[in-house]
């Protein structure tokens, strides 16, 4: 899976979960400050990411931006 494909799929999850427009999600989007995701929202996103990418993530507290999330997915896909 290319970086762009990972980003697109991640964006799809975020757009759906938070009712956003496509152009509201970029790699620099901060989940807490820009999208106002609370900790329960983040678990929801992680759970969907696990299912859609068929990977396992730690319930990590160090995911701040979309880039962080994409990096984590890449790491797990490679593992």
């Amino acid at each position, binding site marked *: 899976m290319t970086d762009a494909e990972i980003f697109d799929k991640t964006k799809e999850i975020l757009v759906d979960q938070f009712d956003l427009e496509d152009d509201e999600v970029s790699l620099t989007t901060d989940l807490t400050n820009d999208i106002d995701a609370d900790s*329960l929202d983040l678990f929801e996103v*992680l759970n969907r990411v696990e299912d859609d990418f068929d990977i*396992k993530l730690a319930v*990590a507290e160090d995911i701040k931006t979309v880039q962080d999330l994409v990096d984590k997915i890449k790491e797990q896909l490679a593992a």
Partner: protein
Amino acid sequence: MTVKTTNPIFEKLGMKYPIVEGGMTWAGTGVLAAAVSEAGGLGIIGTGYWHGEDVRREIKRAKALTDKPFGVNVMLLSRHIREVFDVIIEEKVAVVATGAGDPSPFLDELHAAGIIVMPVVPSVSLAKMMEKKGVDAVVAEGMESGGHIGMLTTMALVPQVVDAVDIPVIAAGGIGDGRGVAAAFMLGAAGAQMGTRFLTAAESEVHPNFKAKILKAKDIDTIVTGNLLGNRARVLKNKMAKSFVKNEVNELQKEKPDAEAIEKLESGTLKRAVQEGDKDGGAFMAGQISGLIHDEKPVAEILEDIWAQATDLMGVENTTK
């Protein structure tokens, strides 16, 4: 349809009642946990940010009082978590419960040691993630609870978690008598967990001021601190709780609110409530069900009375008699 009032995990542990004493930092001592297990429930020792040797001391206090299995609740964010798990494995504790955080990095070694792992979950998605990682059961805890809390109520959370996972779901938050336990089973739970109710047990070692405050509390007497900044925790109202909330509001009005400064206000306050009974400065963590609790009685009686009422309401046989 008849209600199923047990689950494979409770059966394996040989529990008489499908009732768990939720781990409570400082308040859930080895003595209280042993009393709950000895009486036929599952007692869980609370350990917070303790060192391994402090955890071992409480485990030994519990073992001196009961041969029945009991659990330890661990704080995964603790700096001492490695040594705490080493002690738990060495001492062959039966159950590990976890509050905030993700126990999955430790799951393999805990399972290899034969330890049952049940994390507290505040939402459906976290319950699903935990099930995928292989935990044995989840505790779905509503925000009625005492202590640190999530956002959903027990009534709304439990059936949704039950529908989402195939492992046993234990309901927690706002349960204080047989009606609450019966309700938990009606929502599809496979067990009930209580914290606040056990704080006023005869065997509970919390300061008399703490017990008195729960016995006196009415329905409206808890408040949530850390709602705006920091970590949400339900406590009985007192000077400390009210000024905490005011400080949050003040901090939020600043140009750069400092969440850490607010979190620091909590530091040491639970211990002050539990051990010193510090009426003005302690955080008397307790749930909304405090208003229902009017007596101090032995754990065995609490469990016996609750289960008699619950089985009667559910129309199932009380086989403990």
